[in-house]
């Protein structure tokens, strides 16, 4: 997503990225970033909390004209209910993809390499 934002911005379209993986987005480097310190999957606020989502999306809309230079991060001022997810994500106990999804991912990765070999991608 960061790469798409960078490409759009390079070609004259201002962007704002909403995301939960602060290190990955900032490592790539995007012009405007609203960081939501929530589990991956909830970058615009807590599910079913319209008031919070409105505030977070509003922060991003405000940031569009407000940012004066690239690499501007604002942090949504909210915490998830419980903090244990941070320690547990990407562990054996809570693998990121289940076994079936991992298999599909590996198959697609190999298939993409095969397609690339034939020159059609």
């Amino acid at each position, binding site marked *: *997503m960061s*790469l*798409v934002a*960078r*490409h*759009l911005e*390079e*070609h004259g*379209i*201002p*962007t*704002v*990225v*909403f*995301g939960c*993986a*602060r*290190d990955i*987005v900032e*490592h*790539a*480097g995007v*012009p405007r970033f609203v960081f939501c*310190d*929530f*589990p*991956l*999957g*909830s*970058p*615009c*606020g807590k*599910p*079913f909390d319209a008031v919070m*989502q*409105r505030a977070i999306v*509003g922060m*991003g*809309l405000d940031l*569009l004209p407000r*940012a004066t230079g*690239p690499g501007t991060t604002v*942090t949504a001022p*909210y*915490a*998830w209910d419980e*903090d244990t*997810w*941070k320690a*547990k994500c*990407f562990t054996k106990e809570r693998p*990121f*993809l289940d076994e079936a*999804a991992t298999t599909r991912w590996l*198959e*697609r990765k190999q*298939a*993409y390499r095969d*397609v690339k070999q034939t020159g059609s*991608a």
Partner: protein
Amino acid sequence: MSDASHVRYIDKTREYYQGEGYDRPYRWAHFDHIPFTPLARPLAECRVGLITTSEMAIRGADRPVPEDDPLRDPYWLPSDTPVDRLYSLKAAYDRYATTLDDVDAYLPLTRLREAVAEGRIAALAPRFAIAFSQYSQRKTLGLDAPKILESLREDRVDVAVLTAV
């Protein structure tokens, strides 16, 4: 507090996949230069394009991209699709801690429609884009991103909102 304690996904994924027996760590995209384009007009006059990695689909319709499609090119869905008809096919999210059952928590269509109604933005583009989280950065940068740029230009979009799931 939450600012200082954010999850280090780059370290976590490296450790996780090393533990799974992968010896070469994924090289996350990194650039020294960050592009920047200031707004050309007030936000209230801007037409907004929406782009997401959340692999949206419409209930009752065919899957937009076959599950085994190796290319997983970007695709588009109408922005006026009722939110309760949309759902996400994304497998890669923290399914232990959160849910994708509320579309607006990662694809803020309702929130952006409200912003249009309030006059905060001029309009939403007629379609939103779905870009897959690709393993190949070359694919994203060289093929997917230019297609999305082209669609935004066709839709005369002034600013883009991107949500990473």
